[in-house]
């Protein structure tokens, strides 16, 4: 007898159509036809039906597994967690080249400081990487402030890292979180050649709402600058191997202008798989500025109730919505949970969280070491262990369909600050993303 894997999600779309997602394998299928036996079997947890085409499809896609596999699949994921957290062949470094920014976003948790990374610190980062003899894969993330406010250091470090990686045969890939106002075409092309291939940029709705939520520090509009740069990249960048994720930070204000935003995104980025859309609702991420808009924030429960509607409406467009990278196995594991994942602040301090490092009450827990000029770095093991340990109930996590995605280690900063583990499952975001992918035809459809 075959069992249903614990790590699947089933969404009934119509009477003759179901969507199945395997969270362990990170892939899904849509089945069309007589789905009743499948739904009944899924509820019972075992396949007791005949040897049908449906059974073969479910088995070959990892939804039905042998009983002895079912008994150990949770342990397999726990093993994957240990290997991922302590993997010495992988390193992920988030670099803060500057903490200054040319924007004045109304919800930003960062303070108005100006610290730029020096060439000396940049050299120490390159040396740190060169010294790591076990390294086979390197992931660099650029963050700020606005990283492109210190563009020359970004280029300098990426050139140095590319050199080291070529010499040593290390696989390198990089991403950047940027407001995109300074991401003009020449900058983008240069970054592409240096393997900065994935971008997260933010457009908060239409021009009217965006310019209120994300004005320039000088007070002017930033919307047109961003759109001009994105159009230039869309029309003139030759390379195909980049992705630009357009994030929208929702407030009730943006929600009211949703239609205008949708129209613009559709007009600009339809049928272009290099661009995709996702969103977050604005929360109290800390800092002082948020106090000015507390009455405009959606509660988590309110936002979750809107989430499906937003995703559903965007999925009706041809703008790619719900990128698979957000729900791949391990994708929910915070980089702070990995032994060889660091955030390097402008002064070479080694931190574990880009939000927590600006929390003055908790910065001491977030900063766990410092890089020396020669590239050596010391980690405070007593602090580090708070970030690497799994404090959720492993037995409970092993029963959860989303365990392969978060590996039972959601937001370690929240755990340290509030002394309890927060579970992301309640947001049900995985379902919303796969439904959007299904609607846009990105999931294989099979007739049974």
């Amino acid at each position, binding site marked *: 007898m075959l069992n249903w894997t614990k790590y699947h999600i089933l969404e009934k779309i119509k009477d003759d159509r179901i969507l199945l997602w395997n969270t362990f394998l990170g892939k899904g299928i849509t089945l069309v036809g007589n789905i009743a036996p499948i739904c009944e079997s899924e509820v019972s947890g075992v396949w007791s039906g005949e040897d049908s085409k449906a059974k073969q499809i479910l088995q070959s896609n990892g939804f039905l597994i042998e009983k002895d596999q079912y008994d150990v699949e949770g342990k397999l994921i726990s093993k994957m967690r240990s290997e991922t957290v302590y993997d010495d062949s992988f390193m992920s470094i988030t670099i803060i080249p500057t903490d200054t920014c040319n924007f004045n976003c109304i919800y930003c948790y960062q303070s108005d400081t100006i610290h730029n990374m020096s060439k000396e610190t940049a050299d120490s980062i390159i040396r740190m990487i060169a010294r790591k003899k076990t390294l086979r894969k390197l992931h660099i993330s650029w963050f700020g402030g606005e990283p492109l406010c210190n563009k020359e250091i970004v280029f300098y470090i990426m050139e140095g890292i590319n050199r080291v990686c070529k010499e040593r045969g290390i696989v390198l890939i990089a991403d950047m979180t940027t407001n995109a106002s300074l991401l003009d075409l020449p900058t983008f092309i240069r970054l592409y050649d240096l393997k900065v*291939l994935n971008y997260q940029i933010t457009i908060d709705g239409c021009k009217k709402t965006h310019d209120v939520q994300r004005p320039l520090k000088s007070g002017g509009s930033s919307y047109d600058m961003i759109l001009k740069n994105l159009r230039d990249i869309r029309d003139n960048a030759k390379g195909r191997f980049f992705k630009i994720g357009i994030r929208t930070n929702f407030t009730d204000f943006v929600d009211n202008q949703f239609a205008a935003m949708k129209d613009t995104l559709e007009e600009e980025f339809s049928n272009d798989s290099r661009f995709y859309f996702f969103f977050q609702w604005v929360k109290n991420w800390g800092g002082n500025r948020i106090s000015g808009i507390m009455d405009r924030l959606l509660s988590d429960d309110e936002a979750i109730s809107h989430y499906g509607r937003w995703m559903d409406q965007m999925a009706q467009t041809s703008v790619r919505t719900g990128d698979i990278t957000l729900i791949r196995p391990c994708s929910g594991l915070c980089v702070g949970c990995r032994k060889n994942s660091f955030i390097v602040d402008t002064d070479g301090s080694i931190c574990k969280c880009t939000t927590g490092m600006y929390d003055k009450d908790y910065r001491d827990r977030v900063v766990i070491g410092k890089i020396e000029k020669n590239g050596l770095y010391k980690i405070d093991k007593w602090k580090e262990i708070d970030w690497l340990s799994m404090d959720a109930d492993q037995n409970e996590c092993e029963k959860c369909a989303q365990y392969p995605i978060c590996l039972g280690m959601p937001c370690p900063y929240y755990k340290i600050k509030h002394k309890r583990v927060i579970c992301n499952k309640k947001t049900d975001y995985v379902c919303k993303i796969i439904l959007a992918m299904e609607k846009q035809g990105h999931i294989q459809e099979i007739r049974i």
Partner: protein
Amino acid sequence: MVKETFLEDFILTMNECGFDVAEESLDDELQYDSLQFVSTMVSIEEKYGITIPDDYMLGEGLDTARDFINMVYLLKETEDEKQ
């Protein structure tokens, strides 16, 4: 001679991208994940001055180093013809 230089160069590029490739292993099946694939494709674009089109985005048909070499030859030929 030109082909030999190209081959040496290409093997070096693959080595720089983390592949343990040599002349005698050009037909061996390569193991790579999406991260290494994308990183390699961008290195190839830069090294040979070509733009790799969408047809190759998913890596279908790119199982061995020789498959990658054939792709570069084909794309270079196409670009030369355009010029």
